[in-house]
């Protein structure tokens, strides 16, 4: 099992030994592996149950959300029961269960539970398609769990596709709706294209290193070391491979040049599906991107390119703590350059998302841009982490931890605001912002919850959203990325305006005539759901030390691989 090699020298018979070791699996080990993937098995079991239930019980569809809830709760209970205790590589190295992967799996399954509860409260999906809907959702979640724990390029591809394909169908679940169909088609086409690009990138990297197992790739890259940069062919393969992979995952994260699908898809899809895509699929893509960047970036970080005098690429990373007088630049390392480029893209993404949100009239479209902006904050953290890779302790770990923490908070607040959107749509039959004027006035619970979500998204204390932004900015500051901090805080001000606009419309504006006519007030369960999420954000804003410590451990476990 221990074929990770710290230095890089790979002995000649390495692959043979590897294979021999892999196939000699004892049944005890197999049991351990199966135990580790128990939540995934629960998901699969639910999927199979949904598939055959249509055959066995034709009238079953009406209880679909109950079964979905049971499956989701079982999965999350199993995942929580398994805890964060690292197991290491399982199934001959195709998956790795380190604390990082397991934490993200818990996040994803929690998102699934919240999502299932939310959808069973919001009456979308309609009972006719409920079984299929949950089937797709569970399938996607299964893929996302694999994305979070993938340790092998095959699992990377499999997980990414399993997570994406159901998403295309989910967007078009309202098949009579022209906007939804258009959105689904758009999403599928762009998704397929970027998947292709990503797989091409993966194959380039596989060809370069002659391996598909991530730690082996790490070891190979490390053994090539500086030599790599003297060979133009290899260097261009590496560069292209990295760019293609980041582009593919950037599409899923909706980073700036690959963001344009987001508003259309979110506007076409129901708010429920939008919430799922903006939370679960972002989290999974984030986990995968982080893992790949660390796996490939860490060995490259040790190598330094000869043209270190070209500082134009590392303008973002000045390290004032080590300098007296003039600012010095960290020496140009490929991994750092990659990180800085990602940081630049992230800063653009964030700014673009926040500015483009200003002009929106549709609530879901506005939230799509807000999603883009938040992906920008997250990617800033990852970019900065990649930019500081050579120092495994300290800065990089804290950056990754803060990104994970941000992701967990983002999960709660974004799902919350999408749930609010869905309930408002149920109540008033519209998602146009202006048409919702005064919509929260007669419902204090909804108004309080929406305010908490929106202010948390803005990043105002004492809500969890502020703490997430704070630890992220603090980590970036500690690593010397002050310009990213500045961009981040300025963006916070930009974002206030459009989040506050929703609050204003709901709380302050005078209701316009017809609003009351279709009014159908929220059930107590819906209010409890919203208030529960809001309370979680308040509590997490005050006692966040524990969760952050967990995130820190996860980051440590991920970096230990390098």
């Amino acid at each position: 099992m221990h074929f990770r090699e710290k230095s890089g020298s790979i002995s000649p018979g390495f692959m043979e030994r590897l294979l021999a070791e892999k196939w000699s699996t004892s049944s005890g080990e197999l049991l351990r592996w199966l135990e580790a993937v128990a939540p995934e098995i629960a998901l699969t079991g639910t999927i199979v149950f949904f598939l055959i239930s249509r055959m066995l019980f034709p009238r079953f569809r009406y209880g679909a959300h109950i079964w979905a809830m049971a499956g989701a709760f079982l999965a999350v209970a199993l995942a929580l029961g398994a805890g964060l205790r690292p197991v290491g590589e399982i199934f001959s190295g195709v998956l790795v269960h380190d604390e990082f992967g397991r934490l993200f799996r818990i996040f994803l399954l929690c998102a699934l539970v919240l999502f299932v509860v939310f959808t069973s409260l919001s009456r979308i999906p309609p009972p006719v398609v409920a079984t299929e809907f949950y089937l797709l959702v569970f399938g996607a979640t299964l893929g996302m769990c694999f994305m979070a724990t993938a340790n092998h390029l095959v699992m990377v591809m499999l997980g990414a596709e399993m997570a994406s394909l159901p998403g295309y169908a989910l967007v078009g679940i309202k098949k009579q709706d022209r906007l939804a169909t258009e959105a689904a088609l758009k999403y599928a086409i762009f998704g397929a294209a970027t998947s292709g690009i990503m797989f091409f990138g993966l194959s380039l990297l596989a060809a370069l290193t002659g391996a598909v197992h991530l730690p082996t790739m790490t070891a190979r890259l490390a053994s090539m070391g500086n030599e790599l940069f003297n060979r133009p062919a290899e260097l261009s393969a590496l560069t292209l491979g990295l760019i293609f992979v980041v582009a593919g995952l950037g599409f899923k994260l909706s980073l700036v040049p690959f963001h344009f699908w987001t508003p259309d898809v979110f506007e076409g899809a129901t708010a429920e599906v939008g919430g799922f895509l903006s939370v679960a699929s972002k989290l999974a893509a984030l986990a995968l991107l982080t893992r790949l960047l660390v796996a490939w970036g860490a060995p490259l970080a040790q190598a330094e390119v000869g043209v270190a005098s070209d500082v134009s690429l590392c303008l973002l990373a000045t390290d004032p703590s080590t300098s007296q007088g003039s600012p010095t630049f960290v020496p140009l390392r490929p991994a750092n350059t990659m990180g800085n480029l990602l940081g630049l893209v992230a800063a653009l993404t964030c700014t673009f998302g926040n500015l483009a949100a200003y002009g929106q009239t549709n609530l879901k479209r506005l939230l799509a841009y807000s999603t883009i902006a938040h992906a920008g904050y997250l990617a800033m953290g990852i970019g900065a982490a990649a930019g500081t890779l050579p120092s495994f302790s300290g800065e990089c770990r804290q950056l990754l931890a803060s990104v994970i923490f941000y992701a967990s908070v983002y999960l709660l607040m974004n799902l919350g605001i999408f749930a609010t959107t869905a309930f408002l749509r149920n109540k008033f039959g519209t998602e146009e912002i202006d048409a919702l004027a005064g919509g929260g006035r007669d419902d204090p619970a909804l108004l309080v919850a929406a305010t908490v979500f929106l202010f948390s998204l803005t990043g105002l204390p004492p809500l969890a959203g502020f703490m997430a932004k704070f630890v992220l900015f603090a980590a970036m500051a500690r690593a010397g990325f002050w310009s990213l901090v500045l961009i981040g805080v300025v963006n916070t001000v930009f974002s206030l305006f459009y989040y506050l606009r929703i609050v204003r419309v709901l709380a302050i504006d005078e209701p316009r005539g017809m609003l009351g006519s279709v009014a159908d007030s929220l059930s107590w369960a819906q209010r409890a759901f919203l208030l529960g999420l809001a309370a979680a954000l308040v509590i997490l804003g005050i006692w966040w030390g524990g969760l952050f410590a967990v995130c820190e451990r996860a980051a440590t476990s991920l970096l230990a691989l390098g």
Partner: protein
Amino acid sequence: MQQLAEALTSPFVILSAIVFLPLLGALTVAVAPRLTEEETKIFSLWITILVLILVLWLAIPGAVDGRLGSLPWDQGRVQYGFSVGWIEAFGVYYFLGLDGINFPLVLLTALLGPLAMLASFGIDRQVRAYCALFLLLHAGMLGVFISLDLFLFYVFWEVVLLPMYFLIGVWGGPRKEYAAIKFFLFTLAGSVLMLVAILLLYFYSDLRLLNEVSLRACQIDPAVLSGKRGQAVHTFNMLALAELARLPQSPFDQDFWGLPVSVWIFWLLMIGFLIKLPAVPLHTWLPDAHVEAPTPISMLLAGVLLKMGGYGILRLCYTICPDAAYQFAWPICAVALVSMVYGALAAMAQSDFKRLVAYSSVSHMGYVLLGLAAWTIVPGDPSSRHYWTMGMSGAVYQMIAHGITSAGMFFLVGVVYDRVHHRDLSQFGGLFNRMPFYSAVSLIIFFAAMGLPGLCGFIGEFFVVVASWRFYPGVAMVAASVVILTAGYILWTVARVFFGPQYRGPHPEALTDMTVREKWVAIPLAVTAVILGIYPKLLLGYFQPSVTRTVYHLATWADRHLETSTTATGPQAKPLGETKFVPSQISSAASLSQTSPGLAHPSLPHGGPARPDGSKNSSTETDGASAPSPLAEGSTVTGQRPEGVLDQAIVRPGADQPKGTGLVEGRR
């Protein structure tokens, strides 16, 4: 029983109760199902009164330290406070404490709370939400002043924004949405800059540079240093940050993007605070917010929220960044003067009563800024620091006085607005005949705002003007002439509203005198204005030692860093001969203030021992080991370090300096 009483009067319980009682009240109001609107208001009023009682209890001589007859904070330091871990991984503590600088402001907030709540009894829409938000606002304001952990401070600072947005936006006037969002955006823009400054402070701070005595004085357990060998221990502790800034080689002198990091910190913080204060180019949110806000909220906005800016400048900018304070004394003073003049002129031009009061706030807060910014310290001249002590005392006094008078003026405007539903000055007149009691109270408050001697507005303005003379006579001349402008618009307003021809606007029949409830709001404000005007020592006694101590530390810094550049550019360093007449003014001020400590010192022989004014009180300290006198402490840094205790773990930037330099310089 004894233990229970002790536990209940511990700082933890009392200070937490002051901050969290309103918060609990807000939650109760929000969820309590069966309170009627009237009951909700009365409940909220009682909560604010309870907070006031707690704060007043702290103001009783001897209540804090048990020494009979001693005023609290007579040592100028945080004597009443506590610190418990919050997010210890980040060095964030739940650190609340009171000293002379924040106590007057807490007192002001606690006093205005019940008065504003009483003024809120006229609110008739969505009363429960209003009361909940009001109490949340109250908690936030108290938290800003009481918290001594920078992170906690920031959290409370932002907590204030949220209820304020709704209170203006929902219950405000015709342009409430515009005003509310403008207020929110301006303040948030300032506070994110503050956040960057806070991060800079955090990452450049290093607790290992402080010795055990200083750490304990900042309520930091020296154990935080253990187990952190080789790694900097960052902090958000405001007192520790100030201590660090006072080191001979401050960690904030390091370079950051071409400038000392303290300059960045100073400006980032300063912009945030100037927005809040507000100073002139950044003030435009204020007239809108004040005019559109409902009356009680205007009272709090002008009475308390603006003081958060002044407090921040005093507590953070000037204690942590003395070099920037010295370097940029002129620009800041210029901003202050422009605010004063512009605010007064703009007030003169208003025809809306409330807008006039709003602009007068801009003008009056300019005095606060000028008093803080007028750097008078000349290295080696111990007398020079008395002027700054005076300026800063004047600034603090002006903050309190303005809190009383501006809240009063907004309330009084609200009283007539409630009756006639307009605020057009040109239609008012002759109210003295119709509303005699109202007019009498109004005259007191308006004259107090004008700075009439014998009323509270005079003391602060006078101190500031005198202190700024020492900074540069021209500045004092402009500042003094603003008094004339102020008199101009106030007298003109008084003439137009209370005297003059008959009332010409709508609803003349509604102009009846104040109700009992309104009297309960107005009378305390008027009485406070008079008391503070004739007996300033009542308030000065609380904050004078702290201000003296702050100035003392700045002077120590100046002695250490400025001796070579006394003649260089920078603030005016006039030889004393040119300001010969000042002592006579001082003595008149001193007689006014009942010879408060710190103002009687110009009689000291020049070149005498540079004893800080607070040392008189310090000598009464019983616990000399943990609380050295300010002089000793200023020089402990290198002089009294217990060698070998912490040195192994310490990497001092100033380690190459000969030991004891600070001590020698401090006594020079």
